[in-house]
């Protein structure tokens, strides 16, 4: 049993190496692209791999729009659900909702893609009179459905952790239900709810399959920039659509690796931001 200690040290250093290896190899794989195209591609608006045009801005804007739409819908809905289930209704209904949310969270992303493609797109097509329904709005709506359980479950936990003493103190002061909610409960639960929102943001950023099926994969800037009813592209959907046809060693392959690096960096910074805020609080 003398082997236990060195063995555990070995495993731990292996994981530390792994954390370093992921960014290292992504940088290495995308190096030819950065060397040939330079940092200015981040603001380029044209993406035609076969003409060596690699503007990343359309996909970045697409990702941003999709995440914003998803958060705009999922945050109010999720937090309201948490409030209703923890403060208003009976505990059996609350646990039924929790169960429902856990089922929703367990549905694989590809199945959400199927729902998006064959249920949501026809609905959008008929209600907005679009050509196919493929749009950033569809991507945002599907993402909202996918991150809703995350936000709801985290908010429910956060509200439940506020002690009943606080509620009773508030009530004995004669606070109305609204005042109790907005002045006592929500401020205390907010750090944890914010953590859930950041987690959901990271999840929405990295989601590939569902977005890829509904977003339309058309690499051009939204015209005008507020237009979310057009087919568009996100960083993840571009990788998913094009990695199969990019030959290993080509600049195209390298450019897609650069998209992956960008995704990893954004994801890491969201997580670091959440982490430092939590440590401070």
């Amino acid at each position: 049993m003398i082997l236990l200690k060195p063995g555990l040290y070995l495993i731990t250093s292996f994981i530390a190496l792994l954390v370093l290896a992921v960014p290292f190899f992504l940088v290495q794989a995308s190096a030819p692209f950065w060397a040939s195209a330079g940092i200015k591609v981040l603001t380029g608006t044209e993406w035609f791999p076969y003409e060596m045009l690699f503007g990343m801005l359309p996909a970045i804007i697409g990702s941003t729009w999709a995440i914003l739409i998803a958060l705009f819908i999922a945050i109010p809905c999720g937090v309201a659900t948490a409030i209703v289930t923890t403060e208003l209704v009976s505990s059996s209904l609350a646990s039924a909702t929790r169960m429902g949310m856990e089922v929703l969270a367990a549905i694989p992303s590809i199945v959400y893609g199927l729902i998006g493609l064959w249920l949501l797109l026809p609905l959008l097509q008929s209600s907005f009179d679009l050509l196919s329904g493929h749009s950033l709005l569809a991507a945002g709506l599907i993402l909202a459905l996918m991150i809703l359980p995350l936000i709801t479950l985290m908010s429910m936990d956060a509200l439940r952790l506020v002690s009943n003493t606080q509620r009773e103190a508030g009530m004995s002061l004669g606070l109305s239900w609204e005042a109790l909610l907005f002045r006592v409960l929500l401020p205390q639960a907010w750090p944890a709810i914010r953590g859930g929102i950041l987690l959901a943001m990271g999840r929405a950023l990295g989601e590939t399959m569902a977005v890829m099926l509904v977003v339309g994969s058309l690499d051009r800037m939204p015209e005008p920039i507020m237009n979310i009813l057009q087919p568009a592209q996100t960083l993840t959907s571009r990788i998913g659509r094009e990695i199969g046809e990019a030959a290993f060693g080509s600049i195209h392959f390298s450019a897609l690796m650069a998209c992956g690096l960008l995704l990893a960096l954004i994801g890491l910074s969201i997580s670091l931001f959440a982490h430092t805020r939590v440590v401070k609080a």
Partner: protein
Amino acid sequence: MMFWKVLKQYRVKGLLILISLPALVLPTICLVYILWQGLPVLNWQTLSGEGVTGFGLEHGMFGQIWGSLLLMLGANVLAAPVALGLALFFNLYANHNTQRTIFTLLHLLQSIPPIVYGLFGLFVFVHLLHLGISLLAGMIILAMIILPLLVLNALHALKAISVEQTESARSLGLNDMQLICRVWAPLAWPTMLTGQLLGMARALSETAPILFTATVFSGVLWPSSIFEPVTTLQTHIFYLAQEGGNAHVVSIAWGAATLLITLVLLFSLTALLLRRIDQHHRIS
């Protein structure tokens, strides 16, 4: 007048209930819709592919089911010992600073999107190490994706053991190995098992990272070695879903989705049930 008074009194509550309505009804709608579309399609003919022609449907779905389960098992077998080892190191040998570093690293690993792991795996395992598009590459990538989840869960399981128990075991002269096998393992195994089941559910539901590293479109019933590609339910749904011109193919995709959801829910609901039983056990 009465009406307005009531409305004013309950406007916040009413508004909150109104906003939360989607979350209350959507889980049921989604599940019922998937089952409604998928269940009628699932019969022996679609599963075995007998008498069906075209678009990869002639092989049925058993190949896909095996592929998904193989990837899931492989990923969990690879990740479990590493996760357990790290959790034990955390509790036995790491000082406070190391513990904080490990925690930060785990959260960082968790924040990298799955598709980025897919790209990493494509570059390193498929091309640099010449594994090719293979079962093994997919297993390693999925293992990396579920690793943070398993470690955090194992840490949680060990943290729930009271310090008194560990200390009394130490004072009786137990060494590290005896402490792990005789004290920690009997107390922590239900939570560990929960985590493993959640890891299995997670590995089953990931699609993007294995799409271009471990799977092919069709034709594999049982891979002859771990260096061969497989077909999986996840990627099967993806390919079939895009055949818009053929309603029958899309309906098969719903059938595959029903199968996949049944498998995933089997693992995750068992995990949740186990967690609930464990909590009751602890309280009583």
